[in-house]
């Protein structure tokens, strides 16, 4: 692989991205905190447990129905912190802007970021700006990093899922991915689609206040629900069974997926979470999620099973009972999903 070049697939969030992270980044930077490979790093400073996370945002188009790159940049990092049970506090932000970018567009993005930060109760406390010649970046790239505190006794990680846990999904899948994809393809009929970008830290705080049985949280962004569940299964050493008919999917999103040949299980979400919750608390946590404005359509979509033995390749960790009663494997996304021929 080292002789090869970076392909767009390496950024897809699927299996190829995973390989790049473990074979390159982890190989060079390895330490016990990084090696957890969770949504945020967690460590202790002066007896306070902190969560720390960073993410860069590049999206085409930068403005899309339901949001823009600025909202994504704030919500994305807030959510990465929240997925460890942290209360997000402060963000940093870095901008790389292409020469010729309209100041009015920049201001529109900054206003979105301000609004999102206010809603998530975080302050943007430091930043950086670089301008590069035309063509060196596509319009604007934004990085945000965030820091949050983890309340005492909270221990939420991708490796904590246990057999018996129920898997809750907080709402409709694939809204963001299909909104951006149809918008990019100029498919005007899909105008009713909207990105789901949203900060989930309040929802997470309400969940934590209700139950101590929340073992794993993950926001299924790039790579979608299918890839996130594979990561959890891998990290926790368990198997996952899903029920296709319990997974919330809007008719119009499903229609767009059918037309473009995209599997909604691998399309991005920007305002959804997956929670692995002990069976006794699953119903009450589901009620709490549904009471939140971003979780009204939440559903229990599956459960955690003990790991089977002998599956050397690790494939088949996640499988699904299909709506018509068949069974299929849900593998990790291999590379970028490409629109099909017919």
């Amino acid at each position, binding site marked *: 692989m080292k002789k*090869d*070049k*970076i*392909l*767009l*697939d390496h950024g897809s969030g699927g*299996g*190829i991205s995973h*390989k790049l992270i473990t074979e390159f980044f982890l190989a060079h930077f390895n330490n016990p905190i990084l090696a957890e490979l969770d949504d945020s790093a967690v460590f202790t400073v002066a007896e306070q447990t902190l969560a720390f996370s960073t993410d860069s945002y590049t999206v085409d188009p930068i403005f899309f129905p339901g949001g823009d790159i600025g909202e994504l940049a704030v919500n994305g990092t807030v959510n990465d912190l929240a997925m460890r049970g942290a209360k997000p506090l402060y963000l940093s932000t870095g901008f790389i802007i292409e020469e010729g970018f309209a100041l009015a567009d920049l201001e529109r993005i900054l206003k979105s970021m301000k609004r999102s930060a206010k809603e998530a109760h975080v302050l943007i406390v430091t930043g950086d700006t670089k301008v590069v010649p035309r063509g060196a970046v596509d319009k604007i790239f934004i990085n945000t990093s965030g820091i949050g505190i983890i309340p005492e006794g909270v221990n939420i990680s991708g490796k904590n899922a246990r057999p018996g846990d129920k898997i809750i999904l907080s709402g409709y899948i694939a809204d963001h991915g299909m909104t951006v994809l149809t918008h990019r*393809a100029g498919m005007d*009929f*899909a105008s*009713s689609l909207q990105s789901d970008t949203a900060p989930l830290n309040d929802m997470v705080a309400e969940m934590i206040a209700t139950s101590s049985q929340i073992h794993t949280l993950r926001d299924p962004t790039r790579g979608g629900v299918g890839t996130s569940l594979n990561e959890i299964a891998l990290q926790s050493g368990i198997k996952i069974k899903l029920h296709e*008919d319990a997974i919330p999917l809007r*008719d*119009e999103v*499903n*229609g*767009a997926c*059918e*037309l473009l*040949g995209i*599997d909604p299980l691998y399309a991005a979400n920007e305002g959804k979470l997956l929670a692995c919750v002990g069976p006794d608390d699953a119903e009450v946590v589901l009620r709490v999620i549904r009471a939140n404005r971003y979780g009204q359509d939440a559903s229990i979509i599956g459960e955690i099973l003990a790991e089977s033995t002998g599956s050397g*390749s690790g*494939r088949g960790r996640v499988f699904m009972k*299909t*709506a*018509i*009663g*068949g*069974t*299929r*494997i849900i*593998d990790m996304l*291999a*590379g970028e999903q*490409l*629109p*099909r*021929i*017919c």
Partner: protein
Amino acid sequence: MELKHLNEYRDRDICRKIVEKIRVAARKEIRLMEVCGTHTMSISRNGIQGLLPKTITLLSGPGCPVCVTAQGEIDGFIKLSKMEGVITTTFGDLLRVPASESSLERERAEGADVRIVYSAFDSLEIAENNPGNEVVFLGIGFETTAPTIAAAIIEAEKRGLKNFSVVSANKLVPPVLDVLMKDKRLKLHGLICPGHVSVIIGAQAYIPLAEKYHIPCVVAGFEPADILQAIHMLVNQIQKGESSVEIAYRRGVTFEGNNRAKDVMDKVFETCDADWRGIGLIPQSGLRLREQFLSFDAEKKFDLSIKETKEPDGCACGDILIGVKSPTECPLFGKTCTTTHPIGPCMVSTEGTCAAYYKYH
């Protein structure tokens, strides 16, 4: 955009009822082939084989347009993409298909201007917006894509576009089915005929096959209930010893087909012999541009000579494409050949048989 009807065709109770009917009807060993890649994918995605009685075997046929595109043709596409000033446009599936030494995706990382389009018409816009470049559409697919490619060529002529051309690697379904029927190893009892292709060519296109080889043919849609319904109709025919052509996808397909699309296709293209990956040369199974449209022929314009090339060692795509082998019988399957590192085309395409098996079984 709501496709409201989708749910009815995925209804568990409806599907169960059809499965029950199939169980009652199927009394002997039955081997059916689904010709179309989208069927292969739907069967795997919905776990349909597992619902059927053990006496029914489903084999996958040569219906993934990316998979049957000859390696030599893809080598030609890659050669084009590396030419100075050329923008190649293509369907997404083709991007990752490995040829002898590279893929379009790799060439794109090396700097080639390769763009994914949803239809040949998108390429016309690109040609208009880039008058200093040559825009070449890589035309692959079956009768489903050929009419829109033909229409784009007519439109390009109308607009006087001189910097647009097409590599015509389109293939036709009935001739390859004829080759399969002659293959004694397959022992097929019935054909699940493709849905989208039949929208264009009409179910009548399978009548010569049904008559010549006494094989029942049923055109199917792509939802689980559609496919199960087609299987049920085939099983009924087989049990009764019949061999007629039927449609289980009446909301999309007629016996006659789409005459307007056929006329456009016929105006621009004529049939020619074509090389199929893993199968070889099949007479009159491809489409080339008619003389009047030769100025849009990229092969002529760029003097591409498309040569036959050798398949990767051990790759069984050829046998898998015609249903002689199942993916698990290929020595590379799941070992060196995976969806992350595909070696043969059947693993790379979203509709490929190996990809369907690897992802869902």
